[in-house]
């Protein structure tokens, strides 16, 4: 069935939005193989976003851990500092072809909001970003960036005033203004066709990893690691390896203060099957289906659900999902900075943390690729506070 990944996915949205998602699907099917569209998108990827991103051999980390050879896929080097720009350029270009003049988006940490504001500035579109009020305080610098880029930022005060509420509010806004507005969803979630569209635009990550590693090592990796909130950088990193059974795919969720506490955002570890934000998938929720207020030190992984394709990869066993605590992520954040001179986003540090456990257990002939989905400049003040040092941006 269209828009399903096993039993997951679907289109659980208000009737008011149905023609909008149908129109989006038709437009996407029309443009995805259109040579002109792809030529324009490739141009933006290469000339504007700085693709292809480097696949860097982390020699010191490899030596230090004493096991598998480690490569870092450097999505942090993209323009705006994260993988989010891949999806946003694709969707903004598509929206423009559809005749839309206005983009709306949700954001958690602010990375997707900044990327959307950037694409809107570049393509001459209006832009409104919904951001939980809590997050606007935690990430004040990104709020300023979005405004600098010409976007409006709407603080969301409903619910827990974090990412899930920003998604809800963006959906509400979309139902009130559809004709000129495209909802530029930031992850592989929401109603069909978003999980497919976002995955396709992010799949450039695994396509490049495959080409680059073949060139450097003449073979496929043994494991690919990426952090998972909604799961867009992870699905992008996994996609072209799904058909290669020798490649282990590992998603690293945010355990927050631990999967045995209520302060966690590890959906696969603690969630159950449900229907929310337009999709059937796994969600952190109580026994009556009320969505749980989740927690992670990483604002970008602080979401109570996971994209439907990940839910399916979990069901089939094709990908494995592990939970990484705040403590482990912060240690990995500091470790990569010291060892390789690379400050990863705290989100990406969850994947680095698992690599530190995994690599020593693997033979030196094996290869691990870790996607560094974003850079960590935005997190420095928060990590300093976590370590008991009050600094201000």
């Amino acid at each position, binding site marked *: 069935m269209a828009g399903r990944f096993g039993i997951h996915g*679907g*289109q*659980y*949205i*208000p*009737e*008011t*939005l*149905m*023609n*909008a998602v149908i129109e989006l699907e038709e437009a996407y099917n029309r443009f995805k193989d259109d040579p002109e569209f792809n030529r324009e998108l490739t141009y933006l990827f290469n000339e504007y976003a700085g693709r292809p991103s480097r696949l860097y051999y982390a020699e010191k980390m490899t030596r230090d851990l004493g096991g598998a050879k480690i490569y870092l896929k450097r999505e942090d080097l993209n323009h705006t500092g994260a993988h989010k720009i891949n999806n946003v350029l694709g969707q903004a270009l598509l929206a423009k072809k559809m005749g839309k003049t206005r983009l709306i988006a949700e954001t958690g940490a602010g990375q997707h909001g900044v990327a959307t504001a950037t694409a809107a500035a570049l393509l001459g579109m209006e832009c409104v970003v919904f951001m939980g009020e809590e997050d606007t305080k935690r990430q004040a610098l990104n709020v300023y960036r979005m405004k600098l880029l010409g976007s409006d930022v709407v603080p969301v005060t*409903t*619910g827990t005033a974090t990412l*899930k*509420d920003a998604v*809800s509010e963006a*959906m*509400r806004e979309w*139902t*009130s*203004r*559809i004709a000129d507005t495209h909802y530029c969803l930031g992850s592989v979630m929401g109603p069909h066709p978003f999980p497919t569209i976002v995955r396709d635009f992010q799949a450039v990550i695994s396509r490049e990893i495959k080409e680059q590693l073949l060139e450097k090592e003449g073979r496929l990796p043994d494991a690919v690691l990426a952090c998972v909130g909604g799961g867009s950088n992870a699905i992008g990193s996994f996609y072209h390896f799904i058909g290669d059974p020798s490649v282990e795919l590992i998603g690293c969720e945010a355990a927050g203060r631990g999967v045995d506490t209520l302060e966690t955002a590890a959906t696969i570890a603690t969630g*159950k*099957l*449900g*229907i*929310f*934000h*337009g999709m059937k998938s796994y*969600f952190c*929720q109580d*026994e*009556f*289906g*009320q*969505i749980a207020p989740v927690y992670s030190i990483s604002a970008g992984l602080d979401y109570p659900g996971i994209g439907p394709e990940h839910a399916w990869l979990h069901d089939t066993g094709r990908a494995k999902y592990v939970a990484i605590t705040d403590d482990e992520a912060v240690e990995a954040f500091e470790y990569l900075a010291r060892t390789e001179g690379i400050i990863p986003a705290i989100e990406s540090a969850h994947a680095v943390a698992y690599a530190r456990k995994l690599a020593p257990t693997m033979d030196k002939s094996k290869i691990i690729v870790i996607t560094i989905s974003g850079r960590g400049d935005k997190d420095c003040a928060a990590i300093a506070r976590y370590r008991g040092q009050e600094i201000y941006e």
Partner: protein
Amino acid sequence: MSNIAKAFEKGKAFIPFLTCGDPDMETTAACVRECVKNGASLIELGIPFSDPTAEGPVIQGANLRALKGGATTDKVFDLVRELRRDVEVPMVFMTYSNVVFSYGAERFISACRDTGIDGIILPDLPYEEKGEFSPVCEKYGVDLISLIAPTSENRISMIAREAQGFIYLVSSLGVTGVRQKITTDLASIVKVIRESASVPCAIGFGISTPEQAHSMASLSDGAIVGSAIVKIIAKYGPEAPKYVGEYVKSMVEAVKR
């Protein structure tokens, strides 16, 4: 024939919406009885959900107050059981898919039949996904109510043809909440609905004044009002039933006019 049809037998219907457990179940029960006493034709009971994406700020607030007050799906079924000791008008639930799904479709929908709920409105379950619950609804004779929106256009006939109970026509774009003016060309949508549907059609979203209720009901078979009632409850709390009753009386008079 569905029990819901009774609501439309005595002329135009007035359909009030209340969020169960806002501020507590006793107040909800008293408000429902006031609505019935003052001529409401059908009662729409909201089961609170943590993240009601189709609601404006007023009903969002009611959902959160109810959950904070300890409302659960089990307690809502207890409320319905208690109400059915004397309330005879049709009653339907309005909630979100996850509330039904997490309870278990079979368990939830059989409990609807057993307690006396005649239908379910799920604003996040469009035509394409109704198979999620419709086989179980049919098994227990509970109507799964369809919504039609101003943007439905080419989808109206498809939805109307299979509609059960009544059709919930959404008056305007956006979420629930009071609106100054409703500008959608509802008359032409109702015309297409009537060509395909075998059930009545009531209009909701944005209706608060007797004038609006009158004009919406004259275009269709009835008017649905939520936010305006929830506002009265938010203002008066446990004292609200009397004021809800007075308001419903004025609205019933307006739709029957």
